[in-house]
């Protein structure tokens, strides 16, 4: 999956979880600081990540993914590792 496709899917997920407008979901955006998600909403995001990408992100990994860029990097790596 390309980085663009991963980002598009994350935008859909963030819209679904917290109605975050797609244009706010930039690579540099922080989930808590910029997108104003609380900790349960972040869990919801990774529940949907698991459903859409088939990638189980353990909470201890999720805790380190504080920005959209970190999440995209992580999912890209996990995607590559799964091939």
């Amino acid at each position, binding site marked *: 999956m390309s980085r663009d496709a991963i980002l598009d899917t994350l935008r859909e997920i963030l819209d679904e979880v917290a109605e975050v407008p797609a244009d706010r979901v930039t690579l540099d955006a922080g989930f808590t600081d910029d997108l104003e998600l609380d900790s*349960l909403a972040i869990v919801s995001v990774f529940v949907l990540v698991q459903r859409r990408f088939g990638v189980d992100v353990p*909470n201890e990994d999720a805790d380190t993914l504080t920005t959209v860029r970190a999440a995209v990097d992580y999912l890209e790596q996990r995607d590559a590792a799964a091939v």
Partner: protein
Amino acid sequence: MSAVGRRAPLAGAPTALLGVGSYVPSRRITNEMICERLDSSDEWIRNRSGIRTRYWAAEEETVEVMAVGAAGQALRHAALSPERIDCVIVSTVSHLRQFPSLAVAVADRLGTRAPAAFDLTAGCAGFSYGLAMASDLVTAGSAEHVLVIGVERLSEQLDVEDRGTAFLFGDGAGAVVVGRADEPGIGPVVWGSDGSQRHTIRQTAAWSSLREDRTAPWPVIAMEGREVFRWAAYEMVSVAARALERAGVEPEALAAFVPHQANLRITEELVKGLALPEHVPVARTITDYGNSSAASIPLALHQILSAGEAEPGGPALLLAFGTGLVYAGQVVTLPTAPPEPPRPAAAPTAQP
């Protein structure tokens, strides 16, 4: 409420819910009251859980009193006298006595005639576990009428300063009567456990810790809320889907979705995950009653039926999950609307 496909027969046992009842204790506890002891706010609690109020038992409102109250209502709804009950199952984790069981005391107080009686421990899934067993017992001919009661008094096992749990739990009881029916009314249960996650909702210490050290703190509930939230939001969708499939019921045909009232945000995740259409009524009684563990599903059933929010005779998906972790889902045919709505008990003034 659409009736499309509603009357398609349920695949399941020739058993049904004959009556439902509940006990809501007398002390209404607001978020503001919780925050007198807790560094939190009404807004934060509502936002995180959907909870506005919960009810806590007064001293006299023991698990026995609450269970008997709920069972009495269920019997009246089923129009059965207590001697017709030949099995009593009580699900609870807050009966603070190892033996004898709470079920034998409840059976005695109700005036039943020597029924089989026992407690079971399956946390917030306890009611659904008991319901599955009751349906199987009736199907097998081991019992004719089974009383299934979920009762909790978790207010006395709370750490009132724990931001993750102090606001969450309410006390109460709910009960149903299960008996034989002409048509299938209780679908196959989809249940299981994942004991590798038994640390995620736990009692902080065994009761024996109090014997070993008289100054040890009273054991309370501890929960890793984020882990549980994630497990429930992800794993329970497939459990619910399998329960629907085994009962042969399409999601759009549901007359109600009654999940364990764990947290409103878990409920919303499940609704989304199951892609339930908007016309399906969803129990959201946690807003008024908090998370009452084993009591939450029968209390929610009682509430939505009394309020006319769910159509009697239609299929309802029940889905429970809790400490263990354990889970159970099944589809049931909704009974008629109960004659008595859930109502907080009057403050006790005399001996029970």
